[in-house]
């Protein structure tokens, strides 16, 4: 009960009204399903799990709709429901250990690790991302992040929300969000600066070219 103030609206398990009596649902769905799918895909990394998460999110939103007070933006409310649903679904699937990331593990220890080992010279991020290998390497790095860090990176750097908004969604202080974001970025950076990456990248490109 103590957490009630910070949490998103409680999700009642009790008897809900029938879909037919809830016209706002369709508008809610129409207006937000694309954003929620994008968010879910970024968190899950694949389409089927993303669809499950979207379904769970809107189902929970539907059930809790009456309790939505409107003191947050609808999208913030939905992001919060999706984040909670994602945590629950993952816990159910497997006991994914929540590793803490410490800053010291991101201090480079050899010369090759300061720069990224992927070809980006003279390219805008959009141009660089046209490369399939690069997209896969980036996705793999994000997927390797412990969940609580991935959640913050996705909400801040991919969904483009402010630290304050992400704090409201996850029930954390702005300071905690910034700290997690920094570690998440350093983690992904380290993955993209891995020593073997350049060889792997060029080998893949050579294979594709052939």
């Amino acid at each position, binding site marked *: 009960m103590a957490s009630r103030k910070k949490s998103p609206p409680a999700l009642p*398990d009790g008897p*809900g009204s*029938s*879909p037919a009596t809830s016209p706002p*649902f*369709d508008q809610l*769905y129409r207006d937000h*399903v*694309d954003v929620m*799918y*994008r968010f879910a*895909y*970024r968190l899950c990394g694949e*389409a089927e799990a993303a*669809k499950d998460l*979207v*379904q769970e999110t*809107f*189902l929970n939103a*539907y*059930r809790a709709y009456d309790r939505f007070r409107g003191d947050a933006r609808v999208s913030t409310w939905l992001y919060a429901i999706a984040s909670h649903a994602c945590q629950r679904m993952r816990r159910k699937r497997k006991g994914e250990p929540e590793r803490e990331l410490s*800053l*010291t593990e*991101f*201090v*480079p*220890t*050899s*010369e090759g*690790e*300061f*720069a*990224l080992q992927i070809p*980006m010279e003279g390219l805008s*991020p*959009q141009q*660089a*991302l046209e490369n399939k290998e*690069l*997209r896969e390497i*980036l*996705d793999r790095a*994000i997927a390797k992040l412990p969940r609580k860090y991935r959640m913050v*990176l996705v909400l801040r*750097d*991919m969904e*483009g929300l402010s630290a304050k908004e992400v704090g409201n969604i996850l029930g954390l202080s702005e300071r905690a969000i*910034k700290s997690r*974001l*920094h570690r998440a*970025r*350093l983690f*992904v*950076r380290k993955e*993209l*600066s891995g020593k073997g990456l350049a060889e792997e990248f060029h080998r893949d490109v050579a294979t594709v070219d052939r």
Partner: protein
Amino acid sequence: MADRVRTYPGTRKPTPHQGHRKRNCVKVLERLSAYLDDELSGEICQEIRAHLGDCPNCEIFLDSLRQTVRLCQHRPSPSLSEKDRAALRREILKAAATV
């Protein structure tokens, strides 16, 4: 603090990774996201800039972090097809009606 920024007495060319074991480099590394997101005071920014000017490895590191953030920001995500959007809606309403 400014006089402690120079961490390589005797040479302008640092040995690559040794510099990062120094306290100033780690202190700068701790603040690089805040620096990129423009969340630091002018004074701290100035300290960081002074350090970056003097430490090529930190400068390269900052560049690589900036590139990483930009890649994340611009990573496109697939969208739902019309068919999937409609199918999902049906599933949700069906589940909502049965509970």
